[in-house]
């Protein structure tokens, strides 16, 4: 079982990103589920969504409390309590930001993890460049594929094209490819270092 928790703000595509990840995993023959946390969602409010991927049927429908990976869509959430709750020392984390961990005030925090499993990717900037809107979901999923290999880039791209069409699909696909390349290169640099 591979559990992913997404944190972001209402309107940012937090729920859609989790659904796309589940669809991508499902298309590769995995069992997958995705669902949001329901509270008082509105534009701009902190929102969580979850995705589980497994080789066998998934019976639980609980929120993911001990994620194998975290995807943080909005870095302004970083200093809220509970954001990192349950992430194991072997876990993965992808943060959407143009800043590094030190600048984000997480320098000490990331020391407790595998350094090549926690990365920052400028997903909103990539989306702004390729899609024309700062919607980070597609880019983060591309980056996630390069970070964890829980799904392939091709499956992510297929899920994007299944869900969207026209310019939105095209822009998200380009952003996802760019984020995939970014994360792959960052990881290679970290492994060499």
């Amino acid at each position: 079982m591979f559990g992913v928790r997404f944190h972001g703000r209402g309107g940012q595509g937090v729920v859609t990103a989790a659904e796309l990840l589940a669809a991508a995993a499902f298309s590769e023959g995995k069992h997958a589920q995705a669902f949001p946390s329901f509270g008082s969602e509105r534009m701009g409010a902190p929102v969580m969504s979850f995705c589980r991927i497994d080789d066998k049927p998934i019976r639980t429908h609980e929120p993911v409390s001990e994620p194998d990976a975290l995807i943080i869509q909005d870095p302004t959430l970083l200093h809220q309590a509970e954001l990192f709750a349950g992430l194991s020392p072997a876990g993965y984390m992808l943060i959407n930001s143009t800043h590094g961990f030190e600048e984000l005030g997480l320098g000490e925090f990331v020391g407790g993890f595998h350094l090549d499993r926690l990365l920052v990717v400028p997903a909103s900037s990539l989306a702004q460049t390729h899609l024309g809107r700062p919607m980070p979901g597609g880019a983060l999923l591309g980056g996630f594929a390069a970070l964890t290999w829980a799904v392939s880039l091709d499956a992510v791209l297929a899920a994007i094209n299944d869900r969207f069409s026209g310019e939105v699909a095209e822009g998200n696909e380009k952003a996802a490819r760019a984020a995939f390349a970014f994360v792959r290169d960052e990881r290679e640099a970290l492994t060499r270092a």
Partner: protein
Amino acid sequence: MLKQIEGSRAVAEAVAMSRPDVICAYPITPQTHIVEALGAMVKKGELNAEFLNVESEFAAMSVAIGASAAGARA
């Protein structure tokens, strides 16, 4: 080929397969997506039904009873 879809979408497709003549709905969380999908199917002409947006669950039930009294599947 198997396909994974949202639960609400699956409900909407199941409703469509039951060939309703009348769909009366009061869309509100958590069933908004079901009604949205059905509305889109009717608008595209994929589903030949009368689509009525009503003002409460009670009104939806009233329309369903009225429609079935007239012999329609609602």
